[in-house]
């Protein structure tokens, strides 16, 4: 497999990467390549093997079998080279809560072998890059969650990594702070950092150039967001808005040609066989089911529609209750 650009070897390469814990197969022969400067999304349900894959690619966990290279270094024979070329933000916050923000960066920079004026300069650079310019003197433990996550990101880029591994960096972060966080990630990628990121917020996954989807340890899909939508949600997608839609879910599900009905906030997404059901007919059926002020429109599927189709709710009809 050659990357489309063919300018350089892939920055991250996994070949049949496998990890077993006792009888449990956490990661099962996973292969992919990530190009330089790419934002690569790695999605899947809890327990699908995302974090285990990251721990192998960051040199923290030895694969049971298979191989991988990160920034040109072999995972098995050059783990120190791997560690020197990457930044890793794990799900657990690992900075000192009682230290001021900038001192945390100075401390961790020291651990990476930076020192003196160069370290001071780099600490200020990463504060600016992570949009933390005026937070340097704040006590880390006093920071709101979203700002704390940007500090963890700042510390992960101290040593100018070629590849940045982010394991659910925005879990629990509010919508405003998530946008700030992703602006920083996109800036880093634009300047050539390769970003490997997991998330359960599928709106932000739209920023990934390509996405891999894990199910029970296997990589079952790998494509651009547009490619995934075309392949996994080939039906027409109707979005219904209105009041009391929950009452009409069962009726909508029983309509001819309706493959699936899912809740998206207050709205419903209906996956419909082409030509099977018009917007007007769907609206009439929902009204008959007890909903009111109903508006039904065709729409493009979201990555969350894809996730639900791939990961499994798709085939089971999902939620019975309102």
């Amino acid at each position, binding site marked *: 497999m050659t990357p489309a650009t063919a300018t350089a070897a892939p920055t991250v390469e996994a070949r049949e990467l496998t990890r077993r814990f006792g009888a449990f197969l956490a990661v099962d022969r996973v292969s992919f390549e990530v190009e330089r400067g790419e934002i690569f999304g790695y999605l899947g349900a*809890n327990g699908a093997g995302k974090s285990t894959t990251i721990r192998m690619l960051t040199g923290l966990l030895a694969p049971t079998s298979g191989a991988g290279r990160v920034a040109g270094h072999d995972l098995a024979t050059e783990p120190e080279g791997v560690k020197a070329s990457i930044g890793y933000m794990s799900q657990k916050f690992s900075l000192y809560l009682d230290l001021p923000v900038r001192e945390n960066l100075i401390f961790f920079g020291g651990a990476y072998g930076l020192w003196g004026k160069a370290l001071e300069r780099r600490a200020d650079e990463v504060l600016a890059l992570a949009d933390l310019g005026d937070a340097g003197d704040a006590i880390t433990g006093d920071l*709101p*969650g979203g700002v704390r996550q940007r500090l963890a990101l700042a510390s992960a880029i101290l040593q100018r990594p070629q590849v940045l591994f982010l394991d659910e960096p925005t*879990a629990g972060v509010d919508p*405003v702070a998530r946008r700030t966080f992703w602006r920083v990630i996109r800036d880093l990628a634009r300047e050539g950092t390769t970003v490997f990121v997991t998330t359960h917020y599928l709106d932000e996954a*739209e920023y990934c150039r390509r996405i891999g989807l894990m199910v029970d340890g296997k990589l079952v899909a790998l494509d651009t*967001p547009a490619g995934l939508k075309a392949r996994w949600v080939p039906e027409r997608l109707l979005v219904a808005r209105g009041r009391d839609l929950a009452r009409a879910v069962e009726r909508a599900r029983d309509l001819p040609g309706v493959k699936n009905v899912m809740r998206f*906030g207050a709205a419903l997404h209906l996956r419909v066989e082409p030509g099977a059901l018009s917007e007007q007919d769907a609206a009439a059926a929902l009204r008959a089911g007890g909903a009111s002020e109903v508006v039904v429109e065709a729409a493009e599927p979201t990555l969350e529609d894809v*996730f639900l189709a791939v990961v499994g709710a798709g085939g089971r009809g999902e*939620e019975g209750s309102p």
Partner: protein
Amino acid sequence: MTHEPSPSPGAGPAVIARAMVRRFGATAALDGLSFELARGELLGLVGPDGAGKTTAIRALAGLLALDGGEAQVLGADPLSGANRERLGLMPQQYSLYRDLTVEENLHFFARLYVLPRAVYRERKERLLAITRLDRFTDRRADALSGGMYKKLALACALLHQPEVLLLDEPTNGVDPVSRRELWALLHEFVHGGMTVLVSTPYMDEAERCSRVALVHRGRALLDGEPGALIARFEDEAYEVHGGDRERLDAALAAHPAVLAASPAGARLRVVIARGARDEVARAVAPLGAGLEPTHPDFEDLFLARIREAA
């Protein structure tokens, strides 16, 4: 010991927060926060990180004292501990025994609440299936991923089917499939009469509450039924058609009339201050793009209101 008649179901609100004030040093985490939950209501508490949501939940759970105002759960001061067994709490972090397995944690909570064995077995099976933890019953809590840990904590909080359930960001790190299943489960309990207060950073979850309070700097900016709040929303939501999303995003980031920008598939979605549509359309036209009106959602409202309040 005096015997007070227990309040009949349906008498008075299940939860009252009245002008709650709580200071930590110089900062007021709660600064006059008020809301009420009727019995059987599902109230969502949303707001930026640090708005005071966790402090409010801790006050209602009887875990911290207020400096002013009043908290009441099922007619009693939460600090009195009077209704402890009728109240369920899922804190944001560390509510489980790390060195016990999934199954052992559930068993521990069942014994704590003295559940009959048959009831425990039935609820355990159901909660394990819904949370998809049934494959992982032998795994220790400290070896669970963040999302799996959350699901186990929620299962433990639901095991004794409390009358009032307080959930502090129960779905952080939980995948989209399990998140839907957990919400279906919450609705089922609410349908059966449970009163639920839930804080969340997910605005699609806020849309699924019977009422939402938007908290900012320790007070409620808005409180109402989410559909009604969106219907009253005076700013406008648009999808930007044509042009390159990244270039449009960069061009609009600094525009004063653009209150929020979000990815919507390959396109950009923006919230524009009322009346500024033409001005923004002129700004995107040179980039080969135009504006198409779309339906505002709760996330649009959240982003616009917080931006205004900042």
